[in-house]
């Protein structure tokens, strides 16, 4: 230490105290040094002084010195070497705490020079008589592997760990499993081994040891063991059943993480169980622990709700009688309320729809605008889902429109449009009331919805031409979605009442083709113009084509993706409702997962395909996000701000309407190839609500030509479009959003 700090100031005083002859003074000085370190002051200059205090009988002081060492080992590796002797000596200390502490700290230092001295003591500690030392040493092996894999292999630590799975102490077993899993994952990530011949392949004999240790170790150990069990490939149905039976009792653990990990194991091994009765029983046992989590703090509730939401998509019947548990309280945070409403709609049936509606009406009178909109959307979803309740839903909506609160009215209009699409020609009596609120609408989506209704029912609305005239007058000032809808509505009007609306159609085609900035609007106007002038009969067939009624999605994610996610219940993937590849990225784990999937059977292939499309689609989507500020607005959370996850689970659901998920769009558009049973289902549900952002990204980035096709909004479904299930209205919505 040729350069010493100046002989004054805080660090100098500390250094004097660290060298004091009084024990207490020295210990106090160490504490003050750590305190300075905590607040970010540089006390690395005191390294030699602190080091002198390392040899002590006072365990607390030892820990503090070790803490200091760990903090500065990265920046001062050459100084750490001075501490090696003490470390090695400590691993022979009679006190097991000191032995464990020394071995743990050596593993944490991450300094190359220390590592070479680590092997011998580690060898000893793995065989220590004290379980606390053994379990600490087990984890240390994983850290050593992270730094120098060769050392672990050369010294036979790996085999030693595999032997330790049979240790008598369950905590040692749990830590060993955790360490082996870490090594396994990073070995696969670096290409040193593959899933088949991995360092930690779970054999039948290991399986039995794990199942025994599972019931005896701590909560964290259980999570580690359960995660290992989730990786096990059962040989036959009997073995799967056996695993499920042994894991089910974990549902009664007080720690939510254990419960979710157990749910995951069951979901995975249940795939091989073919006895319907057994499956039903397992699923039934799964629900109560998840409901119990609802008495926890809101953060935990949210995780539970997201997982329940996923499970319900696969098994809508599990919580049939429990809808009231999900009723929202005024004080619930927004993210919890949004999930609860989603689940309530999922659980809606003819028996409970009255309770649901009065509850949703209640929410619609709250102050929180986002939540009010979500509730009104939920009313619409209920109407579309349950035919028998549609009329009651419409009545509730009318009551809400009567409140004349601006955002309530606008949302209700949007929702009414969807009800008309599901039940055409049923609630025409409502139209005058909707039209009387025309002046209050200022949001594009609400305006566009009302215009669509007017156009669709032009024959029953006497003053349709006058109403549309208002929008034609202000045509160039309106948002593009409104322009597109106005255009289509006027053309519809013309085809229905050709005599009285010749002037207005001429005017709008003129304005749209000449004065409009948007190529979409112009293109559509040109197409209409040509259709009308060439062959009015064809125009009628195109524009007034019969449209299939919409239906509510049973799943918010594509069925194949759902199956994938259900295997990951209780992980981030199940909370985001996205495959893990999309947010873990190209890291080691991502590679692991991809490889993992490559081995799965044919039944998993469609899932894989879906994943690829999703990944490709999300990249395209990101590109678009940059130049379109409007899609970003109102996304309050960190999740949404990310590039890859451009949608927050909770907040963005409000914006995107129903819990529509962009994934669906992507899968439906690109997954045309895997249509069959799975791909074909996906697009249909999507036609409800406002459409997803994801789909648009695809249009824009994919092929400019696609815009033209989509512009032909009222094309009758033909095989040539390759998207037979896509509703024309949805395409308009999609375009409109951008």
């Amino acid at each position, binding site marked *: 230490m040729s350069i010493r700090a100046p002989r004054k100031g805080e660090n100098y005083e500390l250094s004097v105290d660290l060298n004091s002859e009084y024990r207490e003074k020295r210990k106090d000085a160490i504490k003050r040094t750590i305190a300075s370190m905590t607040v970010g002051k540089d006390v690395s200059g005191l390294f030699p002084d602190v080091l002198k205090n390392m040899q002590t009988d006072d365990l607390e002081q030892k820990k503090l010195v070790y803490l200091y060492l760990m903090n500065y080992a990265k920046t001062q590796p050459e100084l750490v070497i001075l501490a090696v002797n003490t470390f090695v000596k400590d691993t022979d200390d009679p006190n097991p705490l000191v032995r464990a502490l020394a071995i743990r700290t050596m593993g944490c230092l991450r300094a190359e020079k220390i590592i070479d001295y680590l092997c011998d003591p580690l060898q000893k500690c793995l065989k220590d008589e004290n379980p606390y030392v053994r379990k*600490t040493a087990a984890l240390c092996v994983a850290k050593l592997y992270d730094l120098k894999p060769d050392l672990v292999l050369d010294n036979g630590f790996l085999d030693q760990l595999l032997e330790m799975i049979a240790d008598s102490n369950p905590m040692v077993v749990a830590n060993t499993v955790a360490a082996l899993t870490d090594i396994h994952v990073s070995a696969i990530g670096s290409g040193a081994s593959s899933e088949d011949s991995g360092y930690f392949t779970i054999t039948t004999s290991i399986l039995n040891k794990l199942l025994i240790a599972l019931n005896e170790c701590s909560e964290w150990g259980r999570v580690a063991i359960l995660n290992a069990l989730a990786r096990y490939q059962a040989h036959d149905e009997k073995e799967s059943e056996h695993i499920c039976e042994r894991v089910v009792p974990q549902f009664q653990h007080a720690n939510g993480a254990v419960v979710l990990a157990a749910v995951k194991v069951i979901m995975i091994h249940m795939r091989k169980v073919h006895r319907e009765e057994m499956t039903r029983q397992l699923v039934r046992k799964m629900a109560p622990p998840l409901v119990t989590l609802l008495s926890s703090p809101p953060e935990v509730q949210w995780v539970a709700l997201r997982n329940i939401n996923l499970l319900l998509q696969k098994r809508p019947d599990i919580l049939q009688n429990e809808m009231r548990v999900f009723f929202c309280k005024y004080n619930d945070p927004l993210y919890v309320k949004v999930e609860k409403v989603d689940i309530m709609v999922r659980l809606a049936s003819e028996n409970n729809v009255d309770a649901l509606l009065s509850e949703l009406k209640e929410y619609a009178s709250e102050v929180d605008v986002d939540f009010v909109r979500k509730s009104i959307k939920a009313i619409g979803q209920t109407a579309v889902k349950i035919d028998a309740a549609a009329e009651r839903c419409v009545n509730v909506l009318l009551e809400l429109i009567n409140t004349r609160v601006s955002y309530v009215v606008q949302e209700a209009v949007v929702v009414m449009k969807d009800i008309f699409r599901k039940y055409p020609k049923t609630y025409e009596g409502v139209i005058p009331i909707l039209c009387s609120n025309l002046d209050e609408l200022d949001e594009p989506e609400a305006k566009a919805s009302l215009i669509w209704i007017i156009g669709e029912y032009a024959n029953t609305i006497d003053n349709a031409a006058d109403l549309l005239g208002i929008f034609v007058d202000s045509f160039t000032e309106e948002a593009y979605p409104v322009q597109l809808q106005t255009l289509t509505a006027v053309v519809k009007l013309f085809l229905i009442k050709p005599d009285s609306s010749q002037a207005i159609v001429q005017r709008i085609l003129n304005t749209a083709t000449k004065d409009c900035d948007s190529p979409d609007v112009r293109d559509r106007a040109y197409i209409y113009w040509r259709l009308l002038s060439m062959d009015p009969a064809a125009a009628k067939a195109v524009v007034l084509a019969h449209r299939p009624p919409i239906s509510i999605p049973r799943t918010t994610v594509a069925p194949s993706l759902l199956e994938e996610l259900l295997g990951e219940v209780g*992980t981030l993937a199940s909370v985001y409702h996205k495959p893990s590849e999309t947010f873990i990225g190209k890291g080691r784990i991502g590679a692991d997962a991809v490889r993992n999937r490559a081995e799965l059977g044919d039944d998993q292939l469609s899932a894989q395909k879906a994943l690829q499309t999703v990944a490709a689609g999300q990249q395209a989507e990101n590109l678009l996000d940059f130049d379109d500020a409007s899609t970003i607005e109102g996304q309050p959370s960190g999740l949404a701000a990310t590039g890859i996850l451009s949608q927050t689970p909770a907040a963005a659901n409000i914006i995107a309407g129903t819990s529509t998920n962009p994934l669906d769009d992507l899968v439906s558009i690109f997954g045309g190839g895997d249509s069959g049973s799975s791909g074909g289902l996906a697009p249909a549900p999507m036609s409800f609500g406002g459409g997803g952002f994801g789909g648009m990204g695809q249009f824009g980035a994919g092929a400019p030509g696609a815009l033209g096709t989509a512009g032909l909004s009222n094309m009758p479904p033909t095989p040539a479009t390759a998207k037979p299930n896509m509703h024309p209205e949805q395409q308009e919505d999609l375009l409109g959003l951008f």
Partner: protein
Amino acid sequence: MGIDGIILMDNNGRPIIQSGFRSTSPAYPLVHVDAVNDALSKALRPQDVDPVIHVPSLNIGDAPSACCHLQSSDVRVLCSISGNVDPLFGFAFIQTFLDILQEYFGTVSAATLRENFDTVYQLLEETLDSGGHPLTTSPNALRDIVLPPSLLNKLLSVAGANINTTINSGSGLGGAGGPFSSPIPWRKAGLRYTANEIYFDIVENLVAIINRNSVTLSSNVFGKIEANAKLSGTPDCILSFTNPNVLVDCVFHPCVRLQRWSQHKSLSFIPPDGKFILSEYRYAPNASRASSTVTPASSSREGVTLPFALKPEIDLQDYSASFNIIFTSRLTAKSIENVLIEMNLGEGASGIKCVASRGTASWAFDSQKRVLKWEISNVPPSSSWNLRGSFSTPTIAPRPSRALQVHFDIPTHTFSSLKVDQLKVSGESYKLYKGFRGRSTGNVEWRW
């Protein structure tokens, strides 16, 4: 993979103490702190921020991570997780760590954390491995390896004497048997008490929503059996109930033998030392049907009878509103305590004038949260209370919340009337003192 670290942050969004983050780059914790602060500043209300925040990585090569966070008094706890792990793993660890801090310091606040930073550091080291695995989290075992700040230490520092004594140093460490040598993970070996006692508290929390017609929309009772054991040796307890059928959806402390429960409906266990939660359950009034596990419990329909009635009369006028709330106890023998009734008066409410009927009731207005609070410390059986008042708003239509939140305690009362039949202790020969107590709390939303 796993938990990368934990950060304790003060109200201003500055980290107080954080774990080592030794396997990540130094910028990693900073990015997480930033991400959370960013999300908080963007949200209208801090409680509406998504509890799991996605944190993009700084370097292209790294995988992005996620941050679980929650608020506890004036401390915000962040838990960074990476890889496809369970966010609940993070939350469970945060909760466990907060419980440990609570156990050690009595309260968890920014001040106590700063004051005891050395102990907190040691606790972080012992509870969380740098590879992302939680280590020792049972308070029982922790006490052996991290010494709680002693009372004497505290007294000295309060008195202003800055002497950090080392009175506790090396106190019997490595002594008889050594730590972690016990065959039962949750119980230390060789415990000795002069007075052997075990107490059980049955605590039930009623969560209910009542609509404007005083009809119960949903009600659930979540119960807990809290225990405090001070028993020598390794006692083996069997706790049986006269009416175990009222308990559904039970979760248990790992010490409970699950097989005994499913066969005999009694709790058989070797208790941990000190305080622990033996079991949590849901009370379903129509238990006879639900407990057969053929149908998932459909408890909500019938519900439990509420111990009180509320009659809110709220009259909204232009630019102002007046209200008259009457609270009546329906209990005939017991009194309800610590009643707190809250109402959010809406944006910009001001000029609050209230009269609470009797002397022992008081009201206050939290101008930041715009919440009117009416507190009654003790409501004798069948008594009736009222609060009358008015407030004005800057907008023409006042928008107070459509619901009143009622919180209350009822000592020595349980909704389920769960009765302990007997507690048998075998394996040890001493006489012990047993105590049982019931207690109820409630959070009821009453709409008007």
